């Protein structure tokens, strides 16, 4: 936003007053008028942002919902993979038990030792697969990190929504050339927004604020 400045004309007048020692009332009055016009223009410009701000505010809850869906979907997918990994781990436990029993039986049956060796090798392969299954299981902890990042994003979006709604409330009455009652309503809305600052935004409150300030 541009900074208010003393117009060259007013500065010239002030300098002249300073040199002549004359009372600067009339010049200052002119300068105040310039400032008022500047502020008025700035406020009008800012109020023009209300429509895009409103659109953004309406989309933010959707973005939050998408993010939370993402968290739920990764959680469900992770549980699905875990279920399969656990089933294979359980099968491996059974297979290892059976291999041991078969190896013992073969030893008593005087079969070719190479065959018994192969049974042991098979058991070792299953053991290596168990290690890989455990690695898959621990790799799934990515879901927890995703969930934490999503939670942080949802918190940020909630904060942005608060701030955007504060802009709507602050500039809403100005844009509507509102009466005192509207400004009082705006003040009340700001208080409610402040009260929800550290909690998740109540969607009803967001909708009410947007409705009050002409956005349906």
């Amino acid at each position, binding site marked *: 936003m541009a900074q208010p400045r003393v117009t060259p004309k007013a500065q010239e007048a002030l300098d002249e007053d300073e040199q002549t020692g004359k009372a600067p009332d009339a010049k200052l009055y002119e300068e105040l008028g310039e400032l008022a016009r500047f502020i008025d223009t700035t406020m009008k410009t800012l109020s023009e942002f209300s429509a895009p701000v409103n659109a953004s505010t309406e989309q933010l809850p959707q973005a939050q919902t998408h993010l939370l869906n993402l968290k739920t979907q990764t*959680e469900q997918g*992770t*549980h699905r993979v*875990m279920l399969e*990994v*656990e089933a294979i*781990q359980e099968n491996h436990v059974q297979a290892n038990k059976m291999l041991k029993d078969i190896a013992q039986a073969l030893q008593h049956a005087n079969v070719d030792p190479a065959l018994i060796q192969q049974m042991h090798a098979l058991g070792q392969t299953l053991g290596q697969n*168990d290690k890989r299954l*455990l*690695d898959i*299981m*621990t*790799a*799934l*902890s*990515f*879901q*927890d*990190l995703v*969930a*934490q990042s999503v939670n942080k994003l949802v918190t940020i979006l909630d904060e942005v929504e608060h701030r955007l709604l504060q802009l709507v409330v602050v500039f809403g009455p100005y844009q509507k050339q509102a009466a005192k009652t509207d400004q009082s309503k705006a003040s009340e809305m700001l208080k409610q927004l402040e009260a929800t600052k550290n909690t998740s935004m109540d969607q009803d409150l967001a909708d009410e604020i947007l409705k009050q300030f002409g956005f349906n």
Partner: protein
Amino acid sequence: MPADPNMKILVVDDMSTMRRIVKNILKQLGFNNLEEAENGQDALTKLHADTYGFVVSDWNMPVMMGIDMLRAIRADEKLKKIPVLMVTAEAQKENLMEAVQAGVSNYVVKPFTAETMQDKINKIFK
């Protein structure tokens, strides 16, 4: 003293996926008496209701954070000797220091491997 494979272990994490992962690893390491809690408060209730030999806890949780649960355990005459292993994504030094000052038995940073978990458990119960 090596870890007793029959001791009751409490796994504390708000994420069901992480509870399942930690329980799976502990099971593969030979521990079968596993219980779970969703946050620090839930864990304290369970710790008071039964006898546990070991707690594996997350740091960031709603209702009661892992660090607050740890402080409550260390301040409780009945629970203060239970070893607590913190599992967390918070790798910052200040958190580690905070956990050590609060009396954590050891600390694992996510993502971790089963070997890391086993190493930390071995160090706690050596």
